[in-house]
């Protein structure tokens, strides 16, 4: 029987762009992917509701970019103990599988000082670096809305 399972030393990442950077998140963390036409009533209502609930993160604001352009895509991040959160992103590229040995881990200093732990490594593909995120440690609620 053909086995579709990904070997344990490999991880599948959903790769997406936001504000000039390319990010990857373990597919296991991602729930749904919503695409909503920007500058529409639906979009505005959707974003407003997420903001009011305090469960929307915009990576651009986390990464200190001042531009806060409306986003096309919203990923739901599955949380075990707290409400699911949403992250707003520009564009989805696809799914990439990285072998663990090809992932460059963040230096111990970053691991120590980054609270909550968000960027854990970098996937190298040809000349580009894909920033690998884990959003498991991000909490919803007032903290998220304060970041917006």
């Amino acid at each position: 029987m053909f086995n579709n399972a990904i070997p344990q030393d490999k991880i599948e990442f959903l790769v997406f762009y936001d504000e000039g950077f390319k990010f990857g998140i373990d597919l296991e963390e991602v729930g749904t992917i919503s695409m909503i036409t920007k500058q529409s009533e639906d979009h505005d209502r959707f974003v407003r509701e997420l903001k009011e609930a305090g469960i929307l993160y915009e990576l651009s604001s986390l990464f200190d970019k001042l531009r806060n352009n409306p986003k096309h895509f919203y990923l739901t991040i599955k949380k075990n103990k707290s409400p699911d959160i949403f992250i707003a992103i520009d564009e989805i590229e696809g799914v990439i599988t990285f072998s663990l040995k090809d992932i460059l881990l963040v230096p111990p200093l970053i691991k120590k000082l980054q609270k909550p732990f968000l960027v854990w490594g970098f996937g190298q593909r040809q000349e580009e670096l894909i920033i690998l995120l884990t959003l498991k440690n991000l909490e919803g609620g007032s903290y998220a809305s304060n970041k917006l």
Partner: protein
Amino acid sequence: MSNYENNNDTLGKIKEIIDKKQKLDVEITADKIIKEYCIIENSQLLFGIQLEYLREVYDIRNKNDIIPIPFTPPFLIGVTNVRGEILPVVNIGKLLGVSDVVDYHKMVITEVEYKIAFPVTSIEDLIQIDISSIQPIYANVNEEGIRFVNGEFIWNEQKILIIDMLRLFSSSEFRVE
């Protein structure tokens, strides 16, 4: 007195002076502890980093060479990829509390326990400093930052803040298991 005697007398005095000076030079050299420093400029402020901790300097081609990392202290700008090695990037001015601005064109890689990258505007010079000529700090270094500074040195009528790399790496912020 003949010219020959006069010359001998003068030569003797010169020899005596040279001997004294040589003796003095030896004493001065013995008292001096000379260290070599790389003088870097960051947003019009000068910093000295001991040359033995300097590993590499290269031009920053693209501002995206520095990847920001959220949820870290303000002095940590992000990380950079140096030939497959991910290094933390530290704003030296912010770390010492003397400047928030980072106007960078070059990256200075240093290493004590591990490697750290400092983005800088320019490399000014490599100089030798007698460490006894390093003065107490008068610059506006904050309480947090003063832990990482040996003192000030005047060079070309400009103040250089001398970074104490050993103290920096052994500080609670930078010490890693």
